[in-house]
C-alpha cells in the first residue's frame, strides 16, 4: 500500500531561521501530495497541495516542490515565525483508491 515518511518527529527552531520538513512517499500510482497543519485540539487544515512535477505552490510563506524522481515533497520556509509552531502532516492521495495516507507528522516548535 501507499506510505508517507516524515523523518523528523520533532523539530525545534529559533525564530527567523529557515524551516525544512522532509517528506518522501511511495505509491503505485502518481499521487497528489498535500501538507496539512494541525494546531493543538484543532482539525488539520490544508497548507499546500501539489499536482504536477516542478510546480511550487506557496502559502503563508511555506512552499514545497514535488519531485517525482526522488518521490519527495519537502516543506520549506525561509524564516520561521512563532505562530508556525504546530503539527505538520505530509499526505499522499491515491487517485485509484481515493485514500489519503498521512505520514507520522512532524511537531515544529519555534522559540524566540
Amino acid at each position, binding site marked *: 500500500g501507499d506510505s508517507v515518511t516524515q523523518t523528523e518527529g520533532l523539530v525545534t527552531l529559533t525564530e527567523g531561521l529557515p524551516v525544512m520538513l522532509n517528506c518522501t512517499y511511495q505509491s503505485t500510482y502518481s499521487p497528489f501530495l*498535500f501538507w496539512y497543519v494541525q494546531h493543538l485540539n*484543532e482539525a488539520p487544515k*490544508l497548507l499546500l*497541495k501539489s499536482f504536477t512535477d516542478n510546480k511550487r505552490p506557496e502559502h503563508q510563506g511555506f512552499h514545497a516542490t514535488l519531485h517525482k524522481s526522488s518521490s519527495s515533497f519537502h516543506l520549506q520556509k525561509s524564516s520561521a515565525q512563532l505562530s508556525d509552531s504546530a503539527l505538520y502532516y505530509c499526505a499522499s492521495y491515491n487517485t485509484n483508491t481515493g485514500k*489519503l495516507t498521512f505520514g507520522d507528522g512532524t511537531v515544529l516548535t519555534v522559540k524566540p
Partner: protein
Amino acid sequence: GPKVLQIPSHQIIDMGQMVTLNCDPVSNHLYFYWYKQILGQQMEFLVNFYNGKVMEKSKLFKDQFSVERPDGSYFTLKIQPTALEDSAVYFCASSLLGGDTQYFGPGTRLLVL
C-alpha cells in the same frame, strides 16, 4: 473557508454500547471521509464514501463499523458494539472531487470505558 461540522464534540460510552458520530460536510461536496487519531499518534484513514457507497476502507475499519449518508443528511459513522480500543478522536472530512482538498471537521473525542 468551507466548514465541516461534527456532532457531538465529545462522547463517553460504555464498552459494548453503540455510538453514532455525525458529520455535516460542506454542502456541495461529493466525497466524504472518516479518520481516526489516537492521542499522540498519527492520523489514520478509515473509510471514504462517494455516491452512496464505500469506495475504500482500511484495516482499521472493522466489521463493527458502518457509514451512511441517508438522503443527503449527516454522514454518519456507527460503531456497534464499541471496544476499548475505539477510544480516539474521529475526524470527518469532505471534498468536492476525489483528489481535491479535503476539509476536516473539528473532530469527535470518543472515550470508551
